[in-house]
Structure formats: C-alpha cells, structure tokens
C-alpha cells in the first residue's frame, strides 16, 4: 500500500494541475514556467497510476469514492469515484498531458505563461469529467474545460485559428447546454420517483425512468455526446479544430477530448436510459457505420497530413460507437479499450505530424517525400504508430479493433462486414500516407539536412511505443479490468432489447462467434479476451 484509504486520491489527481497553475504564475522565466508545468503534469501522471495499481477488477460499483455535500439545497454534492470505465482514462489523460508539455518544450514564443496555464486548467477539467460522480459537477468540468481548449486553438493555432476556435466552442457548447437541460430533467425525475431532487449519478443508476421521458432525455444527452465524439453528421468541427490547433492541442483533442463523448454515452445514455438506448441503437449504429466509411474515404482524399489523421479519427471513433452500441461483451470491451488505444496512437501520430511540420514547414503530402532516409527515427516511430492505428496484430490497435469488429458481427453480420472495411480502407490511406511522406522521391525542393527527433520528442515517443507494444502483447491487463463494467453496461439495454424485439438473429451471431473464436485461437491470444456473455 502506497497510501492509505483516507487520502482523497482523486481530489489530489484532479486539482493538482490547478495547483500547478499557481506555480506557473509565480515564475517569470520561460524555462521555469516549462519546468513547473512539466513537474506538475508528471506528478499528476504518477498519481493517476496509483488507482490503477490498487483497483480491484472484480468489484462492481465505484472505487476510491469521495463524497461531501456541496450545494445541499439542490441535491448537489462533490462526489468523485472511478470504475472500470474511467480507470484507464485518468492515466491516459495524465500521460498525454505530460506529452503535450514535452512537445511544446521551447517551442512557444507567444504568451508562454498563458499557454502552459491553459494546458494545466484543461487537464484539471478533463480529469474532473472522468472522475465526477455527480452530474452537476460533471457538467461544470465538462464546460470549464472548453475555455482553455478554445484559447489553445485560438491563440496558438495556425492561420485560420480564430474561425476554428469559434466553431469548436460553439458546436460543443451548443450540445452541452442541451445536456444541461437533460441533467436537470433527470434530477426532477429522481424526485418524482422518490429519491429526492438529486444530481447523484450513483443514485440515478437505480432509477427506472418512465418510458415517455426516456426518449426526450436520451436525445438531449446524445446530441451533446455525439458532437464530442464526433459521430457523423456532427463531426464538421473536428477537422478544422485539428488542423488549426497547435500540435499539443491536437494531441489532447484527439487523445482525450474525443473520448469524453463515448464516456458520456456509456456513463449516461446506456445505464440510465436503457429503453431509449435500445430503441435508438440501430440508428446510432447506422451513424457509426457511416462515420467509419465516410471518415475513411474523406481521409483518403486529403493532402494535408493533419486533416488525414483527423478524418481517420472520425472513422475510428465511428467504429467505437458501433462496438459499444452493439450490446455484447466483445464490442463493449473493445470500445472501452479502443478509447485508450486510439488516444495513444492518434496522439502519437499528431505529435509526429507536428514534428514533421516544424521541420518541413508544410503538411501537404505533395510537397513531402523521401524522408525515411533523412529522419530515420521519426520515420520508424511514424510507421509503428501507423501500423498500430490500422490494427496490426501484436500492436494495441489490433486488440481493440478485433473486439469491436467481433461485437459488430455479433450484432448483425452485415454491420460487421461494413465496419470491417475500416481494416482495408484504413490500411489504404494510412500506408499510402506513409509511402508519400517517407518514401518516393523528395518533392520539398529543400535538399538540406533535416533534424531528427529532439530529446523531448524521443522522451515522449519511446514510452508511447512501449505502451503500444505492451497493450498489443498483454491485452488481458486491460480486458480483465473492464470486464465487470462491461457486463453491467451491456446488461441493462440487452434485457430491454430482448423484451422490445427479437430483431437480433441468434444463429448468425453464434456463427460469427465460432469463427472469430477460431481465428483468435490461431493467433494465440489469451482466451480471456473472449469471456462470454
């Protein structure tokens, strides 16, 4: 035991970055601002590892719970806690925040103080979202985190940054105010059903929301989360935000912020409103599949590296949506794990694209080429992350994608087949990107030497790569820990779905199960991946 149970570990995690803001404010030189920011994020990251070590996978419900009344008159409390769903998102946030600070090292020449403060406030906001168990608190963090992101895109972004920043914030805020109405309605329902006016998400889990309320509230919730994910057709803010944001901003945006959407769906929509969730599942899965294919095709058409990676995110997030909505263990587990995987590999890709841009001053693939020989280390990491992103066995992306596709096949074979195009299309645009950037002939017209990765960048990329291999080779570390929560999450809508209709065809899903099982065996994966419903 590294710490005893009385220490409010989650509070420390969430507010440590905010305390770091004071440190940054107190310093004057640029060097020290960076050091303070780095030390703060590193300390936060170390703290986020503690719950990971002490987490009891077999225990249902929330752990490390802290609860004190906050605004008692309105049934609002300061309530933190984590379960298998949020367990890995905290260290992911902690890790990518360190990465964000490291890749910005000595590269910010405008309002440095505000830059690092923004990142620290952002980190507090994100960690708060993942740790909150009170809906009001959740909402406060959810919204408060938008302002620093808005500033990061708008101040330190590239040419068209003001447009992108405004688009980002208006889109997401428009969604979240509807979320707010939904949360208030839930609190009223809680009172109506005899639990008192309360924003407590744990007590909400016990609510049996009347059917006629479920659909309206579900839509209010879903729009907010769908914009964040982003699910097609709510994705249009994403490419702009990504292209204009500074590298570190893109890393956090793709690595963590998008996960908040899926997290919201899994935390609110599925367990609280199972009937509406079951009702809307086909529509959401359809949107997810459209996202998978559409994102991939649009990514294929891009010349801008950042845009390509951004659209690949749309595609990958679409697949996660399909998986978690499919209502089976494989899809759910795959979705939760893929949130982490996508954060790692896409975050890494954005770091590398940013590094390339700094060196070549362009992200246009028509003006790059032949870089493998000139920046071998960068190229190596890039290829590894590309392969991870497109799901090569042995790397992390494979685990998630495989489970997700398995889930999709079990839901409907043709949904699975359509989703599986991501494997082909992903390979096409990703590998083509690698070919155009790193191989072929140099089109940059700048024959001089190009610096390879700096120390800071290497310090980020090496642990990222290790994690990519670790998850790829030892996936049961993750799958074991998300087992309990996945079972909980699929049970509620599944029961309702069984009552609502017999649409799911058991024969086909069994077939898919057998096939996939054999496939897995061949690949020598641990069978714990497939612990069945």
């Amino acid at each position, binding site marked *: 035991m590294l710490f005893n149970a009385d220490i409010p570990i989650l509070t420390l995690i969430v507010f440590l970055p905010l305390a770091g803001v004071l440190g940054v404010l107190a310093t004057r030189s640029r060097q020290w601002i960076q050091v303070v920011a780095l030390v703060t994020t590193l300390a936060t990251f170390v703290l986020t590892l503690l719950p990971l070590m002490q987490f009891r996978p077999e225990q249902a419900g929330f752990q490390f719970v802290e609860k004190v009344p*906050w*605004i*008692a*008159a*309105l049934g609002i409390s300061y309530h933190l806690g984590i379960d298998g769903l949020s367990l890995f998102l905290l260290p992911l946030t902690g890790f990518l925040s360190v990465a964000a600070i490291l890749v910005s090292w000595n590269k910010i020449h405008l*309002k440095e*103080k*505000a830059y690092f403060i923004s990142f620290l406030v952002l980190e507090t906001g994100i960690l708060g979202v993942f740790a909150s168990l009170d809906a*009001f608190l959740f*909402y*406060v963090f959810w*919204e*408060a985190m*938008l*302002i620093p992101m*808005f*500033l990061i895109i*708008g*101040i330190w972004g590239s040419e068209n*940054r*003001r447009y992108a*920043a*405004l688009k980002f*914030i*208006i889109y997401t*805020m*428009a969604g979240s*105010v*509807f979320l*707010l*109405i939904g949360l*208030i*309605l839930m*609190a*009223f329902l809680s009172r109506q059903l005899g639990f008192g006016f309360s924003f407590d998400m744990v007590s909400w889990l016990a609510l049996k929301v009347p059917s006629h309320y479920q659909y309206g509230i579900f839509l209010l919730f879903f729009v907010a989360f769908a914009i964040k994910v982003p699910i097609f057709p709510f994705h249009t803010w994403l490419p702009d935000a990504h292209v204009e944001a500074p590298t570190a901003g893109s890393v956090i945006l793709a690595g963590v912020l998008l996960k908040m959407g899926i997290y919201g769906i899994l935390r609110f929509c599925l367990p609280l409103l199972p009937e509406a969730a079951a009702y809307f599942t086909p529509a959401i899965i359809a949107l997810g599949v459209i996202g998978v294919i559409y994102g991939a095709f649009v990514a294929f058409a891009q010349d801008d590296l950042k845009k390509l990676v951004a659209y690949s995110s749309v595609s990958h997030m679409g697949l996660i949506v399909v998986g978690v909505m499919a209502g089976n263990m494989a899809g759910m587990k795959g979705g939760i794990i893929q949130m982490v995987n996508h954060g790692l590999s896409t975050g890494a890709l954005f770091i590398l694209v940013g590094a390339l841009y700094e060196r070549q001053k362009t992200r246009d693939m028509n003006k790059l080429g032949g870089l493998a020989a000139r920046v071998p280390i960068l190229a190596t990491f890039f290829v590894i992350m590309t392969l991870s992103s497109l799901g090569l066995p042995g790397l992390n992306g494979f685990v998630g994608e495989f489970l997700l596709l398995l889930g999709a096949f079990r839901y409907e074979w043709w949904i699975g087949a359509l989703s599986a195009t991501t494997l082909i299309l992903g390979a096409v645009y990703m590998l083509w990107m690698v070919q155009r950037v790193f191989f072929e002939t140099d089109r940059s017209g700048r024959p001089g030497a190009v610096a390879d990765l700096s120390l800071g960048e290497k310090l980020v990329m090496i642990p990222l790569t290790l994690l990519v291999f670790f998850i790829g080779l030892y996936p049961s570390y993750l799958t074991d820990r998300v087992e309990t929560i996945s079972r909980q999450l699929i049970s509620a809508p599944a029961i309702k779905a069984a009552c609502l209709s017999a649409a799911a065809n058991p024969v086909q899903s069994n077939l898919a199960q057998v096939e996939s099982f054999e496939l897995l065996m061949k690949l020598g994966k641990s069978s714990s991946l497939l612990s069945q419903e």
Partner: protein
Amino acid sequence: MNMILSDVNLTSLLPEFILLAGATVLLFIRGGGRGKGVVPAAVLSVIAALAAVLYLWDLRAAGFGGLIVKDNGALLFQAMILTTALISFVLARDFLPDHKNTGEYYSLLLFSLIGMGIMTSTGDLLVIFLGMEILSLSLYVLVGFMKIVRAGMEGAVKYFLLGSFSSALFLLGLALYYGATGTTNLAAFAAPSAAPALMLAAVALMLVALGFKIAAAPFHMWAPDAYEGAPVCVAAFMSVAPKIAVFAVFLRFGTGISGPGQHLIWTAVIFMSVASMVIGNFTALRQSSVVRMLAYSGIAQAGYILIGLLAIPEGGASAIAFYLMVYIFMNMGAFASLAYLSRRQDKALHIDDLAGLASRHPWHAFALAVFMISLAGIPPTGGFFAKFYLFKVGIEAGYLGVVLIAIVATIVSFFYYLRVVMVMYMTAEGEGLLPMRTGVTLIGVMIAAIVIMTFLAGIMPDQFLRSAATVFPSIIPGM
C-alpha cells in the same frame, strides 16, 4: 388609510434618511480633483445606509401606517442596490473628468438610491410610483451629465421622453387599479376582483411601465442610446440597480393576481421574456460598440431573469435574487473594465479597440474575459450557476418551452461574448488605441475583488441559497 402619529415609525426608513442626509451634505461640498472629499462622503453615507440595513435585519420594521415594510426581502434587495452604488462610486471617481467630479453627481446618485430603497420596501402602488419617480428623475439628469457630449444629450432626451411616457402609463394603470379595487395597496390582488377587465388593463399598463424600467423587449428602445450617451459609470449603474429595484417590485406583485385575466398576464410576461432574450441576443451580435453590446446583452439578461418570475412559488424568488446578485458582479465588472480602459476619452470604445489587450494588460484582459464568460453562463463562474438555477426553477414551474428558447438564446450569446475574448486574446496588438496604465489603482483592486466574487458565486452558492430560503417566504404572497 388613516394614519396616526405612532404609526409613523421613522426607523423603518432609516437607510433612506441616512442617504438623504448624505445627499444634502454632498450638494454643499466642492470636491477637489478626482472627487477628493466628495467620494469619501458619498461612500460613507452608503456604508452607513448598509449598516442601517444590517441593523433592521429581522426586525420587520413597518412604518407610515404599513406603507413601508422593511422585511428581510426588501433589505436584501436594498443591500444589493447599495453595493452596486459603492462599485459605481469607484468607477465615477476614476472615470469622470475633474470638473465634473463634484458633489452634484454623487448627490444625484444618492437620491436615486433613496427612490430605489422606497420601491423595494413598500406594498403600495402609489408609494412604488413615488420611489420610481425619484429614481427616474435622478437618472434622467445623470444620463445627460456630460453636457458637452452630443450623443449624451440625445440619449438623455430619449430616455426622458420615453421614461415620462412610461411613468404616465404606470399612473394610468394605478388609477384603473384604484377604480377596480378601491385601494392602492397590492394586497387587493389576492382577492377576486369585482371588475376583472379593469384589473387586467391596470396590471397590463403597470407591466409595460415596469418593463420599460428594466429595458425588457419590446420596451427596450431607449437603452442602447441612453447607455451609450451616458458616462460609463452612469451606464454601469443604470444597467444594474434599477433592474434590482424593479424585480423587487415584481416579486411583490407575485402570483397574487387572480381571476380570468391571470393567464393573459402570464402570457404577457412570457412574451416579454422571450422577446427580450431573442431581440437582445440577436441584436447584440451586430454591435461594434462595446457599450451598445452590453446594453443589448442587458436586455437579454432581463429576459432570462423574467423566467424566474414565472416560477415564483417554486423558488423563483431566490433564483431571481441570486441572478441579480451575480449580475451586479459580472455586469458592473464588465463596465468597470471599460471605464478603466476608456477613461477620459470622448470616443466610444469599440470591440476592435480591445485587440491585443491580453499582451499588454494580461490581468486586465483576464478580468474582462471572466466577466464575459460569466455573462455567457459558462462554469465555473457565478453566471453559470445563476442561469442553471433559473432554468431549474423554470422547468420546475412547467415552462420547459421557455427554457429551451432561453437555451438557444444562450447559444447565440456565446458568439458575441466570446468575440470579446477572441479579440483580446487572438488578435495581434497595435490596432487598438488604448492608453497604458500601470501600477495599483483603486479601480484595479476593485475589479480583482469582483473577479473573485464572480468565481466564489459559482463555486460556493450554497450559503446564499440557504439564507434565501429563509428570506423569501416572508415577502411573497401565497408562499
């Protein structure tokens, strides 16, 4: 109403008497530069009045045969008005040119405080009218206080003409009310009316007049011109304080009105609320002058607060009070920042003038950004909790539709509030014309304090809510 001498009970008007003494003394003081001697006297009388408010707390002092009732609700609103005045003194001290920084200005402000004090603490329509006139007459003069500025005169004349028209409407409504009930006391609302049509007309006329005073659409036309023409310190004061007084009056009206006209009145309130939110927010989008933008934002804010009125038995009163309290901080704060920036300049400040402010005045830009974010209703500021609370009581009272319109209006408002933030932080400097000021100033310290209050109101609203719960049942009929 027969009154005997023992009913008078002068203590019930203690704050007003103190203010009256201060206002009279101020007329005879000739201040030095930057309000030397004058400002301390004015501040002292307001603080003394605040002390009197504290003294009267829980006493439920009634006087003048029941015409004046200083219950806790009245005192709370009066304390809020006095706080607003204190902030505006600091602004005026900093903003007004020396030859205008005289006792006359502060004296007029104190008179307006007397008027608002009376408005908050009476249940009699005639006395409300008296208070309203004392308030309005002082404000008419204050708006045109900078005589040399042409826009100032235009705004003042417009405000005066429309204001007297609305006063006349209130008086007409009052006459009809007397005709319908035989009394000018608001308590007659509660009883079923013998002449419902007359009563309806009376209430409608008074609603129009009060709507004018808070600049709710469609009676808002005067506000942008008057705010722009007035000195910034006056605009700040008149964008907040009269709203507080009028909402105190609204709360006394309460839900008391009965009879067939009731739902018509509610429809009218809903209409005013929705129209204010829509017109205010959409028009604010197109403003280039900061003060005009804030004027339209004020119209929209009045629309939000009116939602609370719809929900009076369900905690609407404390939602309104909380919103107004936060509104003091965020709106006065925004105006204070402008006063600080546009000090002793004859030209109106444009949004583009703020370009690059974050580079030259990082703290100042931060403060203004906080006020904008709070006005937009983004956590963790007080503005968010205030809006959340209003929406909550609105939904509770069954006005989900109105709340949804408010939500859409809020989304629209993000554009213009955040535009200020964008201009300050995301535009290269060198385009603005603002003079640099360094060092610690009184107004700077005050702005910092307001920023802290804005955050505190968002992070720890619990204490306020608990005390509000004990205050409001006493003044609202039917609760």
